[in-house]
C-alpha cells in the first residue's frame, strides 16, 4: 500500500509524517504538492500539521482552496482513506469533509504538551489495533483545537460512533479537568459518517517511537496498514 503526505505552503509536520511512514513503518510514501491535481495510485492520504498559508484569515480556510483539495474530495467520495492531523484536521473541517468547526483554545494560548486520549471506537480502519477505552499518551501542539459542534451535530456524531478520541486523565477519566482546550465533550478526534476520514488534534507521528517517550500513536498508522493490506472490514 502507498501513502501520500500533502504539502501545503506552511505545512511543518509533513516531513515528520513522511519519516514515520518511511523509516518506522517501512511503507512507500510520497509527497504531494498542494498545486498537484491528481493523487495517482495512493491508498492513504495524510494531511499533516502546520500553519498552511500561515493560518492567516482562519486555520485551514485558505488551504481548502488549494488545487489538490479537488482530488482529495474525489478520493474521499470513493472511500479512500484520509488522516488529517492538527492543521490537517482543521483543513478537513473547512473543506466540509468532516463536521464541526475549530475555535481558539479556551485559555487563548498555544499549548504543546503530551496529553492523554481515550480510544472510544476501535471499529474504524484507523483504530482497529486499540482496545475500547484504551488510554493513549500523544502530544498536542495547537492554538485552535477547541472543537465545536452544535447539540444536534454532536448527537449525530455519537449516534454514528464518529467520536474516536476524547481527552482524558492518565487513568481514563473523561471530564473537564482533563480537557486542554475546551473542546465539546472533550473531543480530540472524529471520523466522517462513512468512517474513511479521520481528523485528530493530537500528533500520532510524535508518539510513534520509543525514543520520543511513547509509541501509542504508531498504532494509528499500523491500523490503517493492517486494514488496507489485509482487507479487514470495519
Amino acid at each position, binding site marked *: 500500500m502507498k501513502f501520500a503526505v500533502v504539502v501545503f505552503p*506552511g505545512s511543518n509536520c509533513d516531513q515528520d509524517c513522511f519519516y514515520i511512514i518511511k523509516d518506522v513503518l517501512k511503507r512507500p510514501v510520497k509527497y504531494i504538492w498542494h498545486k498537484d491535481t491528481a493523487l495517482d495510485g495512493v491508498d492513504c492520504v495524510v494531511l499533516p500539521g502546520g*500553519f498552511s498559508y500561515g*493560518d492567516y484569515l482562519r486555520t485551514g480556510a485558505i488551504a481548502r482552496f488549494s488545487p489538490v483539495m479537488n482530488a482529495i474530495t474525489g478520493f474521499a467520495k470513493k472511500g479512500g482513506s484520509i488522516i488529517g492531523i492538527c492543521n490537517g484536521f482543521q483543513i478537513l473541517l473547512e473543506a466540509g469533509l468532516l463536521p464541526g468547526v475549530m475555535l481558539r483554545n479556551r485559555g487563548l494560548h*498555544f499549548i*504543546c504538551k503530551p496529553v492523554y486520549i481515550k480510544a472510544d471506537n476501535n471499529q474504524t480502519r484507523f483504530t482497529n489495533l486499540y482496545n475500547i477505552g484504551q488510554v493513549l499518551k500523544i502530544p498536542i*501542539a495547537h492554538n485552535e483545537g477547541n472543537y465545536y459542534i452544535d447539540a444536534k451535530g454532536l448527537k449525530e456524531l455519537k449516534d454514528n460512533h464518529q467520536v474516536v478520541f476524547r481527552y482524558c486523565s492518565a487513568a481514563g477519566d473523561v471530564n473537564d479537568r482533563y480537557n486542554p482546550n475546551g473542546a465539546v465533550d472533550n473531543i480530540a478526534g472524529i471520523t466522517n459518517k462513512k468512517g474513511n476520514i479521520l481528523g485528530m488534534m493530537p500528533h500520532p*507521528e*510524535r508518539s510513534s517511537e520509543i*525514543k520520543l517517550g511513547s509509541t501509542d500513536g504508531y498504532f494509528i498508522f499500523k491500523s490503517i496498514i493492517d486494514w488496507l493490506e489485509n482487507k479487514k472490514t470495519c
Partner: protein
Amino acid sequence: MLRPDIYHSLGLSDKEYLQVLKILKREPTNTELAMFSVEWSEHCGYLCSRKWLKILPKTGKYKTLIGEDSGGIIIGDLAIVFKMESHNHPSQIEPKQGAATGVGGIIRDIFTAGARPIACLDSLRFGPLSQAYNKYLIRGVVDGIQFYGNCVGVPTVGGEIYFDQSYNGNCLVNAMCIGVTKKDKLMRARAFGAGNAIMYVGSSTGRDGIGGCSILASHEFKEGEEKRPTVQVGDPFTEKCLIEATLEAIATGYLVGIKDMGAAGLTCCTSEMASAGNSGMDVELQAVPRREKKMEPWEVMMSESQERMLVCVKKGKEEQIKKLFLKWDLNASVIGKVTSDGLVTIRDNGKIVARINARALTKAPVYAMPYRKPGYLRKLDKLELNRIPAPKDYNKVLLKLMAAPSIANKAWAYEQYDHMVQTNTVVLPGSDAAVLRLKGTNKAIAATTDCNSRYCFLNPYRGAQIAIAEAARNLVCSGARPAAVTDCLNFGNPEKPESFWQFKNCLEGIADACKSFKVAVVSGNVSFYNESPKSAINPTPAIGMIGIINDIDKACSQNFKQEGDTIILLGCCRQELGASEYLKEIHNLNMGAVPRLDLELEQAVQRTCLEAAEKGLVHSAHDCSEGGLAVALAECCISDKEKMIGANINKLSYGMRPDALLFGESQSRIILSCSAGSVEKIRKIALKFKAPFCIIGKTAGRVLRILNDTKELIYLPLEYLNEEWSGSLKKKIEG
C-alpha cells in the same frame, strides 16, 4: 561640506566623517552617507568590541567552522551550525514583534549557512513581575516567540528566563538557533566570480525598520522616546517557505553565496558579500521588489524589512533558481552582478547613487575604549554573614525559593512553544539541557543557555567563567560532551569606562574558561547600550553551548527515575552564601563574594559525571545552581510531574550554617542517582578523576527530607513543593 548635525544624527562622529571623506576622496551622496552610518554603527561594525573579541578561542577539541554570520562544528560528515543573537531594544519597545523578528533573524542566519534549522533556544531577562509593564513584556515576548517559532516549524526546546531589578526598562531577548547539514552543503555569505548574478529573494521591501540597527541598537534608551516605527514586523509563514526554497536552491549546486538581509538590510548584504568574496557588485535598485511607492534610494538601502535574502547565483542559472522560489510564491529578482573592481556600485534607474570600495565600507574603525573598575564592587564585596539572621523554618524558605520567578518551573512559557515539531526532541524542556537526536545516526546533541548575571555584576571575570562552567555542567548532566560555544554579550554603554571594564573582564573570563574546557567560541553577537534612564543592566554574557552525545540511549535527564536509588553528590559544599538567590529572595541582599570556581575541580566533577553517564550507570543527573543543594534536590524529585519521587537525604555532615548548606551556591556540584549496583563503579570513576564523591541518601516515598547529621532541616511533601514550583510563574504573570 556637509553640516555636522546631519551626520551626527546618523550616528557618525566628526572623526568618522573625515575618514569617509578620505575613503571617497569627495563628499558622500545621501545614499553613501546612510550606508556608512549603518555599516559603521556599533551593532554592525563592532567598533568598541572587536579589539577584545579577538581573545576568544576559535579552536577547541572539535573541528570548528567560522562563517560570516554563524559558526559551528563538524561531527563526522555532519556540520552543526549555531548562533545566538540579541533583539533587546526592539523587544523592550514592541515585545511581540521584537521577539518574533529576533527569532526570524537568527533562523535565517542558520539556513543561509545551508543548514536546516532544527531547534531554537531563548535566553530572556526581565525586570520584577511586581511591575505591570514587565508582565506585559514577558507576555508579549513569549507570544512573539510562539507566534514565529511555532509557525516556522522549528521547535523551541530550551533557554532560560530570569528576573532582576537591573532589567527594569531594558529587557533582554537573546535567541539561539541550531542547524544541521551535510558538511559539503555548507554555504558562505560571499559573492565572487565576475559576471555571476546577484538575486534578491523573499519578501518585498518597505520602509519598516529603517535605522533599526544604527539608531535603536547603538544607543541607550532615554525617557519618553517614540521608537516603535523602527521595529520590524515578522511573517513566519514567508520564512517557512524561504527555508524550504533556500535549501532546495542550495541543493542544486548553483549558488555561490547567500546572506540574510538582517540589520542594515541591503547595505550590509551588498557590501559584506562583495568584501568577503574579494570582489565588487553592481546593483540596480529599481529591480528590488517593493511594497511601498516612491521610496528613496537610501531608504531601499537602509530598510530592515524581514524575510529577505541576497543570493549570488552562477551565471546562466538565474532562471532555474527563480523558478524554484516562484514555486513557493516568493519574489526572486536579478538585481545586479558581481564585478571585479572591488566597488559596491548602487544605481537608481541607471544613475549611480553610491559607489564605495566594499572593503573600506565594511572595515569599520576599531576603538580602544578606556575602562575602569567600578566603585560599587568594593562596597558590595563585603558580606558579614553573622549579621544575617538564620531562618527559623527552613521548609518555608525552600518553598519560597521554589516559587521565586527565576527558579520556578517555566512550563507557562515552554508549553506555549511547539518544542516537539521535527520529532527530534528526546529530552523535553525543563531539564538541564535539551537533547535532540540526529536522525540517521545514533548520535544526539544537547543544548543549553546559561548566565547568572548577578555573579557577573559582582565579579565579571568569575561570573563569566561560571557561565561557561555551568553550561558545560548542564551538558554533562545530559550525558553530552561539551563541544562549542556561541555567546550573546549584553552590556551597558561601552563609552562609560566602568561599563567597558565589565565587558573586558567578562570576555577574559569566557576566554580563559573556554580554553580550560577546550571549547571554541564559534559565533556570537554583542549588544551594548542596554541601559534605561535609571541604570545599566547587569553585565549579561549569555552563553549558548552545544554538546555531543555519541550514543543516544545514554542521554540523561534530571528527574529521579525510581525508588530505592542511591543519591550521590559529586563536588564539595562550602560555606558560600554570597551572590545567592537565597540572599536576594529571603534577605533582599544583592551582594557578597561570588562562589569560588576551581576549574580543575570542575573538570574532575564533570568528567566523572560524563563517564558514568556514558557507561549507562546513571539514572539521573542534575547540577546545583540557583537555590543550591536544596532546590536542586527538590527539582530532582518533582521535575516529572507524573512520576514524582521523594528523597531521604540522611548522610550529610557539614559543620556550617544550615542555610549555607541548603541554599549556598558552591560551584562544581552534581547530584546523581543510580541503582545500588552502580555505586562502587561510579566511586571508582570519581577516584580516577579525583572528584569528591559522597553518598548522601536514597530516593524514597513522596517526601523530600534533608538532615544534617541528625538534625532535620527539611521535611516537605512533594505536593507542597510542586504547587509552589509549578504554579507560581503563571500566577505572577496572569494573576
